[in-house]
């Protein structure tokens, strides 16, 4: 048996809890089944069972999983875990299934009750697909919480706690997504994916399984980093491309896959870049590890040490450069009067967006390269807000709109201008970050 699973079984599955959980749930369900006069007793269980499944499995289970690593750090047992001979795969399974073990035990009973009740609601939901979507959704949020918790393990404890709270919102968003599928009649509605017709609920359930698989793989890769197991940085951009391909499949077929994939690819890679920028710590020492490995010709090691955000920024640039070609025939389906200006913006703005992400990454490296870096992410967010909104807004209010366009060139409406100005800003930010890093960390170490 996986040692971590066994440890959680010792901690979470004592005899008292094993007996108390079903007893309490039985009482709650008996209360709901006996009260009210709408539908049969079995139908009346559906609502409370759904809510309890959500609360126990999604909210509480996610909280337990997110806290599992933070608690190890707090209790100073994290080094003991990192010193084990278990591989990242075993650790992922142990933590992912172990930490929310009791939530699965109690939530599983609620889910079974929900399925039992749903079977009495003819034509409303497909029980099998709903159960699959719920289980996959729970695995998805648990694994995401575990990965995020591992990413935050070296951050200040307050930030970790905030992250945990933020992650608790994720299941809520998920439910908002799930809701329409069920309330609209589930299997009755269909959608098109790459021109193929799928019923909504099965499509959602299978998609959730795939997303859960990626989330588990993400947790595995986060464990690899914590356990000093070296990996090459293909997973993050691969996930971004998968999301882009999945989303492109939902686009109207007459747009064409290439165009849809260019747009979703650019957006997915940009979002992935910003997510990585603020979750995967980019430190001056990390930059130094990359630079040192690169300088001695060890390209593999340099790639292994690379922070995540450049790995999704690179394909973002590829999509941005491909955009003019993908949108070359855009007039055929985009029937707008002022095509030149919009076409120019549509083909050049992607490059400006990619430059903007590069600039913002360089700003973070600039703050991370301080002699005594503190609150790097916070300072970066402040300066990004200044550059994107505050300064341009103040300049515009002061009647200096032409100057504001040099700060936020997207205000010009010209894609070419935006690309040129944002490219210059990116070059300046990279130059400043490189200069500061060299000054504080780039000196040869004494021998």
């Amino acid at each position, binding site marked *: *048996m996986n040692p*971590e699973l*066994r440890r959680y079984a010792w901690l979470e599955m004592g005899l008292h809890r094993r007996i108390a959980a079903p007893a309490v749930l039985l009482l709650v369900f008996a209360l709901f089944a006996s009260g009210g006069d709408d539908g049969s007793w079995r139908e009346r269980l559906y609502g409370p069972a759904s809510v309890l499944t959500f609360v126990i499995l999604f909210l509480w289970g996610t909280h337990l999983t997110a806290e599992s690593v933070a608690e190890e750090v707090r*209790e*100073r*047992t994290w080094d003991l875990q990192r*010193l084990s001979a278990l591989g990242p795969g075993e650790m992922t399974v142990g933590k992912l299934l172990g930490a929310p073990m009791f939530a699965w035990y109690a939530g599983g009973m609620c889910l079974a009750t929900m399925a039992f009740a749903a079977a009495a609601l003819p034509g409303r939901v497909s029980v099998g697909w709903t159960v699959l979507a719920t289980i996959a959704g729970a695995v998805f949020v648990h694994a995401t919480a575990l990965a995020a918790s591992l990413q935050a393990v070296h951050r200040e404890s307050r930030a970790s706690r905030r992250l945990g709270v933020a992650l608790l919102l994720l299941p809520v968003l998920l439910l908002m997504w799930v809701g329409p599928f069920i309330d609209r009649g589930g299997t009755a509605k269909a959608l098109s994916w790459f021109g193929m017709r799928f019923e909504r609920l099965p499509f959602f359930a299978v998609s959730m399984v795939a997303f859960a698989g990626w989330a588990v793989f993400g947790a595995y890769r986060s464990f690899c980093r914590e356990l000093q197991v070296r990996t090459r940085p293909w997973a993050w951009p691969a996930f971004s491309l998968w999301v882009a391909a999945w989303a492109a499949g939902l686009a109207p077929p007459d747009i064409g896959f290439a165009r849809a994939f260019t747009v979703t690819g650019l957006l997915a890679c940009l979002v992935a870049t910003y997510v990585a920028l603020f979750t995967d710590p980019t430190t001056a*020492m990390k930059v130094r590890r990359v630079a040192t490995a690169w300088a001695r010709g060890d390209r593999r090691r340099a790639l292994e040490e690379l922070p995540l955000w450049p790995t999704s920024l690179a394909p973002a640039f590829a999509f941005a450069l491909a955009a003019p070609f993908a949108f070359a025939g855009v007039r055929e389906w985009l029937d707008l009067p002022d095509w030149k200006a919009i076409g120019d913006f549509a083909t050049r703005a992607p490059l400006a967006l990619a430059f903007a992400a590069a600039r913002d990454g360089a700003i973070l490296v600039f703050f991370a390269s301080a002699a005594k870096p503190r609150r790097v992410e916070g300072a970066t967010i402040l300066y990004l807000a200044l550059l994107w909104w505050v300064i341009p807004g103040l300049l515009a209010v002061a009647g200096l709109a032409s100057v504001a366009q040099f700060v936020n060139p997207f205000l010009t409406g010209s894609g070419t201008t935006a690309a040129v100005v944002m490219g210059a800003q990116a070059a300046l930010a990279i130059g400043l970050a490189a200069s500061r890093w060299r000054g504080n960390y780039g000196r040869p170490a004494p021998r």
Partner: protein
Amino acid sequence: MRALSGVSFELNRGTVTALVGPNGAGKTTLLRCLAGLDAPLEGAIEVAGIDVLESPREAHRKLGYLSDFFGVYEALTVAQCLAHAAAMQGAAPGRVAESVRRTALRLGLSDRLGQAAGTLSRGLRQRLAIGQALIHGPELLLLDEPAAGLDPEARHALAALFRALQDEGMTLVVSSHILAELDEYSTHMLVIRGGEVVEHRALEGGAGPGERRLRLRLAAPRADLVATLGALPGVRVVEAGDREAVIALAGDEAAQSALLATLLASGLPVAEFAAERENLHDSYLRTVRPGEERA
């Protein structure tokens, strides 16, 4: 600024190395790098033939590490803590119970196996943490301030444990500020200062490989003491006066016994003749003092 720079050394199997240096010297960083918990910017670390940086998980089967700020799973019993540690290090399921029994016996925790770890005293928690670090029988045991917070009796027991582990062939690296405690069991001294290794040597002082360092004291002065000792085969005079001498003898205890017989036969009034271990405290101060003077 680097925590460690240009650090390079080898540890012989079955030695106990005292890792000493001032606060902030890089001792903990060095131990964490050796344990594969932190990766150095450059360089290589090998433990029992395994590259720690390339294969940290394999290396962990060969080493144990006790952090200076360790924790134990407080809600688990002592037996569960030890069983969990053994399983985490890849012990076969059928051997876990025996490993727990043997480790508990060695650490004096046999009568505490059913007690929750969170209810143990500081000294017992320390013992449990050490038990977790060595339950899988590592070849290299790294200990960062293992005796911090222990009472004298517990420290003495710890020293006895380290000597027993050394006798079994285990290699130990022990970091501590309490040099007198290290003196009880260390065979080597690794001095680190400012992230650099200042000195790494055996604690036999003037004795070389295969030699024993011996102190001889006479009941009355003899002017020919140095000449007499110098003429003996296998004897090298390290320092000598007319009444006392420190010599390095090539050979084992039998050679030492034979030398004593020779000295008595030659008419020297031997009052004391014993193996001498170098005082770690003095050695450390001798090593760092030139640096302090430079500073």
